[in-house]
């Protein structure tokens, strides 16, 4: 019998504990940031579109937490107040069959909440997710996915190859609108750098577009997000934002490296010949999109 009692107690308190753990860990870890494995909110994107996602996440969280607390609270109240053992002997439960007013209430209130969330999401969608959002990019980088790695083709005419668990970063300049044109040569891949912004798929057959604009220098991790074969987990991704002068230096160095590997038939670049630059485009950053 004593065992039973213990179970009853635990049954009433456990949901409370779950709620407490959720929220204590939530608030305590909110400050900790990425890497802890316990971050309770979406990263605050370093790019404006990512930042807007973070804002939306917070907006959704207000009604979400409210509903969560309300419903779990009601459940706990039922658990405590209406157990037969606690009620007076001859208690006869009221035989309600429904209540029009209440039923309308819990149809309309959620609807209103959803209208707010939906509208805010739609506004963000229109601002950040259309072609207009990145119509006038400062730089266009063509990102091509393949089993298992990435190619970043810069407007200046060189291509960076990135593969493996410690990949070569995609270098971008700070404070410039960088448009990414995404495509794949084989199966579907996904481009995701959580600390910058949301993900976009790389689908063979058509081009997807996304963009980033980062204000401070830094380096962030990412990864392919569509299962693309045995080596999928090795398809790691790095994006590195550098100051504009550093970026210019990076471009110069990459161009020089490319020229060197093309002129000297080094064993490391046997496939360089077919990609002969029939008049490589001048290094003008706002040059039109590179053809695929």
């Amino acid at each position, binding site marked *: 019998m004593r065992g039973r009692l213990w179970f*009853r107690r635990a049954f009433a308190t456990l*949901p409370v504990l779950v709620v407490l753990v959720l929220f204590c860990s939530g608030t305590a*870890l909110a400050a900790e940031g990425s*890497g802890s*494995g*316990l971050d309770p909110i*979406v*990263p605050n994107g370093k790019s404006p*579109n990512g930042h807007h*996602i973070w804002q939306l*996440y917070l907006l959704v969280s207000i009604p*979400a937490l409210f*509903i969560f607390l309300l*419903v*779990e609270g*009601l*459940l706990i109240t*039922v*658990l405590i107040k*209406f157990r*037969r053992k606690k*009620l007076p002997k001859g*208690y006869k*439960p009221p035989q*309600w*069959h*429904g*209540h029009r007013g*209440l*039923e309308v209430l819990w*149809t309309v209130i959620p609807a209103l909440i*959803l209208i707010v*969330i*939906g509208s*805010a*999401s*739609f506004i963000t*969608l229109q601002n950040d*997710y259309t072609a207009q959002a990145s119509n006038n990019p400062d730089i266009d980088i063509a990102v091509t996915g393949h089993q298992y790695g990435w190619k970043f083709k810069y407007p200046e005419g060189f291509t960076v190859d990135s593969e493996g668990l410690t990949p070569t970063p995609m270098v971008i300049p700070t404070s410039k609108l960088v448009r990414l044109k995404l495509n794949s040569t*084989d199966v*579907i891949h*996904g481009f*995701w750098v*959580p*600390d910058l912004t*949301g993900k*976009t798929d790389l*689908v*063979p057959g*058509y081009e*997807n577009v996304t963009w980033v604009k980062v204000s401070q220098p830094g380096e962030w*991790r*990412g*990864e392919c*997000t*569509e*299962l693309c074969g*045995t080596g*999928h*987990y090795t398809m790691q991704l790095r994006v590195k934002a550098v100051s504009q002068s550093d970026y210019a230096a990076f471009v110069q160095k990459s161009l020089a490296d490319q020229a060197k590997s093309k002129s000297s038939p080094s064993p490391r670049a046997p496939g360089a010949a077919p990609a002969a630059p029939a008049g490589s485009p001048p290094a003008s950053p706002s040059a039109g999109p590179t053809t695929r």
Partner: protein
Amino acid sequence: MANVLAPPRPKSYDDTFFKPVSLWLTTTDHKLIGIMYMTTGMLAFVLGGILALVMRIQLAQPNLKVIDAETYNQLLSAHGTTMIFFFVTIFMTGIANYFVPLMIGARDMAFPRVNLFGFWLIPISIAIYYTGFFTGGALDAGWTGYPPLTTKQFNPGLGVDLWAASIILWCVSGIMASVNFLTTIVALRAPGMGFSRLPLFVWAQICTSLLLLAVGAPLAAALFLLELDRQAGTSFFVSNGGRPVLFQHLFWFFGHPEVYVLILPGFGMVSEIIPVFARKPIFGYTSMVGALFSIVFLSMAVWGHHMLTVGMNIYVETWFMVMTMLIAIPTGIKFFNWIATAWGGSIDFQIPMKYVFGFLATFLIGGITGVYLSSVPVNTQVHQSYYVVAHFHYVMVGGSVFTLLAGTQYWFPKITGRMLNKTLGEWSFWLFFIGFNGTFLVMHTLGLEGMPRRIYSYPGGFGEEGWGATNMFITVFSFVIAASVLVFIYNLVVSWKYGEPAGDDPWGGNTLEWATTSPPPPYNFEKVPVVRSFMPLRDMREDGLRPSLASPE
């Protein structure tokens, strides 16, 4: 039931339970077929669970090499397929097979032989899928099997073909079962059981069957087209000239309704169990039925929310977002109606009721994360990450599995004539509740930090410093789930043999299945029951009638 062609049935189960085997293979009795469905589902649960544990061991720490990457992908795909197609759907079909005819006062399903045939397609389907492991590798592209990864060019092995064959067969079986349920419910109801007096579990089964009937064929079609690509060189989905994304549309046109196929029967069970243990009628019967039907229709208009990163037009995306958000409304109605049913009741927290409250407490979290996921911009952050893995396990385990365990606890006495052991019941419930939340709660945070789903391993270095500890925590708790499932199954087996006798109506039920003996005789009811409300058994009790309709003394 005026089925002249019906094969002879045993007079009683006393001499047929467990013997002879030939009866089990050839019976057309809906109850025995129901038990076979449930047994198959339970075995699939154990199998899928073992696969999950192996995956969890592999993920416990960064850079482990317990299994290789190819094996991981195969286990992942088999786990998803097994849990969705072979466990939850099949187990739910089993419960419905057993109880829909009883609840409507019928003697069997409308098409007993179709019922038997439909059941036997399932073990065959499972066997075909698992043959892949012995013929050079099973499906390794996730349970969704997106092309181009599953086209011949990138996946020449037999595994994909076996998967397609297995699932097409499954669709055929599901369509047969759906037609059977719908016909049974429309044609074989007891006198007085109008549609406004159907138990909500039966309403839920109507909706489930309508859904599976509508979306089973498109899935079969998608897999058929994929096979044409693979075998006949067509190019529906291939990367050169085909439209890989078209497959996703077809797949998710099935895939989203499928999650409601998994959960609606559970909703039905909860709507039956709460009134019985709270001693109150269901709150808002009509709005419960209305909510079920709005879920049926809306769930076929939301499939694109699984594809919000493939680059659709933003207005199309907005449509899917709005439809998805709309589904939250009927789900909310059901939730509040359940709480209102319990509110003011005199609640006896027997084990089935604990599972129901476990369901309410956890499924809520899955519902709320669903609203986050429906917001398109937020979706692009959390899609295909562990956040989604957490979300759908909260929905499918917190929802479907909790309810089907509740249903098993609730109806076991009727099926076997014996009560489940209470102490073991407490242990299995608490281990499951704690293990489940321990396993899946922190998966949300891993996903928010950028851990993608379907990865074999993670470096654990730059930006991932804390992932190892969190993953270890998850793996430890997944073994708590395993322990709870062992206790649960042990309880089933032991109580079936040695449990206390249950009597006809151990809980004070409301619906007709409690009016007959436990287990019910082969013909279910001696007298045809008469119904004058949606709680016929309660009416009989209140009229002071002896409820048993099985043995007229």
